[in-house]
């Protein structure tokens, strides 16, 4: 099957060669685009990022301390009244959410941590069921993109895919230093993540789940989270 298909393609192109063009030939195509936004101040990037995310129906918040973030989260919890919150086991998430269950206003919330160790299929299914009943998922953003307001997230041993997918509200923690001017600046990292073998799913999240399939009326939360909140941490 494979040989037949390849033979057909070679004959269609009237060639026998299966030599790829040199990488330099491909790279040369991008030369007219020039350098890009090198050397833009972090503050400006954060501002641009927040404007772009808002325009995409996302909710950016900037915090300069852990306390500020926690105070805001308590407010959110009072507003939304979540029964369960799924937490990624990333050290940054853990440090910001440390002691959350002891906070006033959060005692009734069931905080579930993504188990780091390999625990087999049953444990995975158990986690999935619990995530399906969770209102909020808090995970990490690997990067942010100032031109679009999007973030990059990945499935890892610390963070399940479902954490940012089955819940109603996805909160992503984005250290300000990780904001890049545009997606192109992340391309090398995307290659590394794909080839490293630790993560099978990298997702660029540009906003909440949305559709306009019924009479072009925009509705959020069709299948994925109806709210995308990005907590930009300016202390990192």
């Amino acid at each position: 099957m494979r040989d037949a298909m390849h033979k057909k393609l070679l004959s269609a192109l009237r060639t026998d060669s299966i030599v790829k063009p040199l990488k330099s030939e491909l790279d040369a195509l991008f030369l007219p685009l020039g350098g890009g936004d090198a050397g833009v101040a972090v503050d400006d990037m954060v501002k641009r990022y927040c404007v772009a995310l808002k325009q995409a129906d996302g909710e950016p918040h900037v915090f300069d301390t852990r306390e500020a973030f926690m105070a805001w989260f308590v407010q959110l919890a009072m507003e939304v009244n979540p029964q369960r919150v799924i937490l990624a086991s990333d050290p940054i998430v853990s440090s910001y959410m440390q002691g959350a269950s002891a906070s006033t206003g959060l005692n009734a919330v069931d905080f579930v941590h993504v188990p780091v160790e390999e625990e087999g299929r049953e444990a995975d299914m158990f986690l999935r069921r619990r995530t399906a009943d969770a209102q909020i998922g808090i995970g990490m953003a690997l990067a942010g993109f100032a031109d679009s307001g999007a973030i990059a997230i990945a499935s890892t041993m610390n963070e399940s895919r479902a954490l940012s997918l089955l819940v109603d509200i996805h909160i992503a923690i984005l250290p300000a230093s990780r904001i890049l001017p545009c997606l192109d600046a992340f391309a090398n990292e995307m290659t590394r993540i794909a080839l490293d073998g630790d993560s099978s799913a990298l997702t660029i999240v540009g906003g909440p789940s949305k559709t306009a399939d019924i009479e072009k009326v925009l509705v959020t939360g069709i299948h994925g989270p109806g709210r995308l909140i990005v907590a930009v941490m300016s202390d990192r």
Partner: protein
Amino acid sequence: MTVPLKPENFKSLVAERLFNPQLRRNLSRATQTALTKRLAVVKDYSDWEQRRLIAHGIKKLVIEHLPAYLGEFERNAEAAGAKIIHASTALEARNAVLDIVRRYGGTLAVKSKSMVTEEIGLTHTMNEEGIETVETDLGEYIVQLAGQIPSHITAPALHFSKEEVGELFTEKLGIPYTSDPKELTAIARRVLRQKFLDAGVGLSGVNAGIAETGSICIVENEGNARLSTTLPRVHIAVMGIEKLLPDMRSLTHVLNMLARSATGQRISSYTSIITGPRKTGEKDGPDELYIVLLDNGRSTMLADPRLREALYCIRCGACLNTCPVYQKIGGHSYGSIYPGPIGAVITPCFYGMRQARYLPYASSLCGSCSEICPMHLDLHHLLLERRRQAVADRCTPFIERVAMRAGAMLLKHPWTYRLAGAMGRTFGPLLADANGSLPVPGWTTSRDFPKLAPHSFQSLWEEHANARRDA
């Protein structure tokens, strides 16, 4: 039960649709909104034209060296744990998918929006074979419930009013009637969420395969593709072999243009880049990933250097929105999975030129499609090439071929041309109708035949020259 696709019904479908005021209004509003939103974000790039050329250059490199890049993609995908299947035809692809599903004992499959799976008629076949296959994109779900086909590449249920959706849900889901889009959406979310959780197989298309890493990229706004490719144990992705890009840098370049062209967003809500099935240590994700590489006529387009460019298309739908013909008749008129200008170019590949013969002529060749295409496809010249093929394959009306041949003969010699002109001026007024137009069967039902001038240019020139000489 789906409406059969018949591009040969084009003329009758158009006649129906042109005189439907509601459809005309919906189409007009939808296409104008899409065009306005697109312009607003294209403005982000002062070098948009340059970017189009670069995108074109990238695809040209890949398509001209397709066997090499395809081989690289296969090797890297397999190294990441995916299983590759080659399907030359739609039948082979359907059988391959059925085979996999049966092997895993699957009885319920969830499917995200994918043109290529519609092209091969996958959903219909699977349901017939007893595997409940649920379309999960909201628009596709609505269309599936109603037993119809989608009418637009990116907005499948464009032709439904919210009241019609409400009635449909009440009838098929037994819920109390509502026409509020928010409520209808919440109902669909609930119903489909259970399907995602229960399904054993997830089906998807692929927006782009990345040769350097063996990754597949799936772009969406709803989240149903992520769910379909995360929750079930088996993920089967169907990919047209032309959907390759060399590396991640090429992918980001194209992604910058795709959402802007398709929906006027800077980026879609979710762009998933999947490399193999779940890895050790990951908490969820499918145990198995199958990638079905589909030819189904693409190698035929590849073999024709004049049509090869059509393989660069990224299915953004911008050419549909800008086409003055599409804006008036809508997608269903084309009777094909792929409507609009790009549809008219590639449909002959899947249905044959005879069945698709009207489509390349459903165009004024205004070139708006070529201007808007992010991949810089020369669409209106591709349409012209298809017309040339339609004539060569004798798919145009016999009378038209005779008339064209006669016309060519008349234009070949000055004396035949003068004679034809003289006869036209003598007998024309005798045959002309009340409007002064010569009645040409078929051709003049919607146009006037141009009035012949009382004197030919040549005779006027001679007269003028003589007058000057005599002066």
